[in-house]
């Protein structure tokens, strides 16, 4: 049985449709990412799951119980807010203990569980501080500790890495994933950062305009994007059609996604799965130079060149493997 199921959930704000018949299921112990741009409905979906927004239509089920009309304080979900929403008038200890006090946990047990939660987020010895005395990264840890102290069935994270410095993001992301593995609790993370979603989540749901565009493992999303727009959104894949170059793929399709890093520069273009092209421009990307090339058929491709990059205007020969062509619908 799914831990969480969202069935046909719609939510409108005036003339804006934030969620349009959203259907999703989440397994126990999963790290799940909701990926999408602004206006995709990802945050609204998270707020519907947490009980902060009531859907106009549809059903939300948590561990077999219909919670669609259950208010947040009676749901076994816990939210880590993007702004952390720590209580400024309470110490770190009292912030983390807040949920336990509401359950009527005895004081000795509260002290033990708060210490445990602060330990889990590597923040022992901070109990007496006030939130404003902590750095952004420390505040986030307190927010996570506060949410997990009640041992929720499902942890909801709204852009958990969004407010952190670039240097902290990757490490914090990995810590978050390690924490999820240790607790075994299901996490649902909202993010607009595809690298973050693909790196951390077991499964990723891509949302577009309030609808589910695709859901799957990061590998499946990367290798087999379901639509042309998803192929472009995830890693900026090229869209190539059989009229533009001689293609030989593993299965026939009207178009294929071809990732820039899977195209090689070769001395001579092969008859199939290759083409001669002219370099239009190159942009340094750190891990290589992203070339924009123009095939003789007129089509433009992006090619990631790891070695010495050819100058603009020079002629190059390209080749790719049949396995690199991911079939797309028309």
């Amino acid at each position, binding site marked *: 049985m799914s831990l969480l199921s969202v069935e046909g959930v719609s939510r409108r704000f005036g003339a804006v449709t934030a969620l349009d018949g959203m259907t999703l299921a989440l397994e126990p112990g999963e790290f799940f990412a909701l990926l999408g741009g602004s206006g995709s409905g990802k945050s609204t979906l998270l707020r519907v799951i947490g009980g902060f927004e009531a859907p106009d239509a549809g059903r939300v089920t948590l561990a077999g119980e219909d919670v669609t009309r259950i*208010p947040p*304080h009676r749901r076994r979900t816990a*939210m880590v*807010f993007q702004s952390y*929403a720590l209580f*400024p008038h309470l110490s770190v200890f009292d912030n983390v203990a807040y949920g336990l006090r*509401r*359950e009527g946990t005895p004081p000795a047990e509260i002290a033990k569980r708060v210490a445990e939660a602060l330990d889990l987020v590597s923040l022992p010895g901070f109990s007496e501080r006030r939130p404003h005395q902590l750095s952004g990264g420390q505040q986030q840890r307190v927010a996570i500790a*506060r949410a997990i102290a009640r041992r929720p069935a499902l942890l909801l994270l709204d852009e958990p890495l969004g407010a952190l410095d670039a240097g902290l993001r990757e490490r914090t992301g990995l810590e978050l994933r390690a924490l999820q593995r240790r607790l075994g609790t299901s996490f649902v993370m909202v993010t607009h950062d595809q690298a973050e979603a693909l790196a951390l989540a077991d499964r990723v749901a891509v949302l577009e305009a309030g609808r589910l565009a695709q859901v799957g493992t990061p590998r499946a999303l990367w290798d087999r994007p379901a639509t042309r727009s998803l192929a472009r959104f995830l890693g900026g894949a090229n869209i190539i059609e059989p009229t533009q170059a001689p293609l030989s793929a593993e299965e026939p399709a009207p178009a294929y996604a071809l990732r820039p890093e899977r195209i090689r520069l070769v001395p001579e273009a092969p008859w199939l799965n290759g083409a001669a092209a002219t370099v239009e421009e190159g942009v340094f990307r750190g891990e290589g130079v992203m070339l924009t090339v123009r095939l003789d058929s007129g089509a433009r491709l992006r090619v990631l060149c790891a070695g010495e990059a050819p100058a603009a205007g020079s002629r190059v020969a390209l080749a790719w493997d049949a396995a690199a062509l991911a079939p797309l619908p028309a």
Partner: protein
Amino acid sequence: MSALRLALWGWLGLAVALPLGIVVALSVGTGAEGVPPVRWPWEEGASLDAWRLMAEDDVVLLALWRSLVVAGTTAGLCVALAFPMALGLLRAAPRWRPLLLALVLLPFLSGFLLRVAAWIGLLRDSGWINALLIAAGLIEEPLRLLGTDLALYLGMVHAYLPFALLPLLAWFAKRDTRLEEAAADLGAGPFTVFRTVTLPLAWPAAAGAFLLVFIPAAGEFVIPELLGPPDAMLAGRAIWSEFFGTRDWPFAGALATALLLVLLIPILAQQRSGLK
């Protein structure tokens, strides 16, 4: 910037420091026949007679004390009423909000004396409320409403409520509602959210609202005079009668200065707590 600063200091000097200086100077002057009925301290030397007289005058000290009680009660009632009103206003549908706010502020737009006169019309023995109660057969003799503490506080709260409501409304409008959501998310029901998060965080705003009512209410003269019990003297009336009745200006100046000093205490207390 410097022009603005000049204007600000000019305003403070002319509208605050100068009148204040005059009142303080009066309090250490000596009474005399003539117009004005006082000898300034720089004419005949400073004298603390008025202060000494005041310290021994139980009636005046009682008036001062009663003023603080009336102001404190009024401010407490206003804040207690303004809290639910501010929250209710913000929870109302957006299209009703301007209308509700206008209804709250409407009394401000009508003349102050007009409002007091309206209360007199409602509350006096032959007023609307008594007429209504007699017509309904609930009472036979008119109730004494005008000239009681009830009438006093009705008038005071009615006049001063906006001073408490507006700062609370401003605070509630800009508060971070995520904090209340976080509390609900952690298992707190609506009342617990209010008690543990909304109320403690609104405390400084409530203290500010309290002071905004308390300070002018302590010196209020017209409402207690027209609506309140006639026998109970307040500081406002004491100052008035010393100035215009007995024409003892040094005494009146000392009384006004004393009232101001008493009011400085809660202001300083609030500033100190605000600095922390």
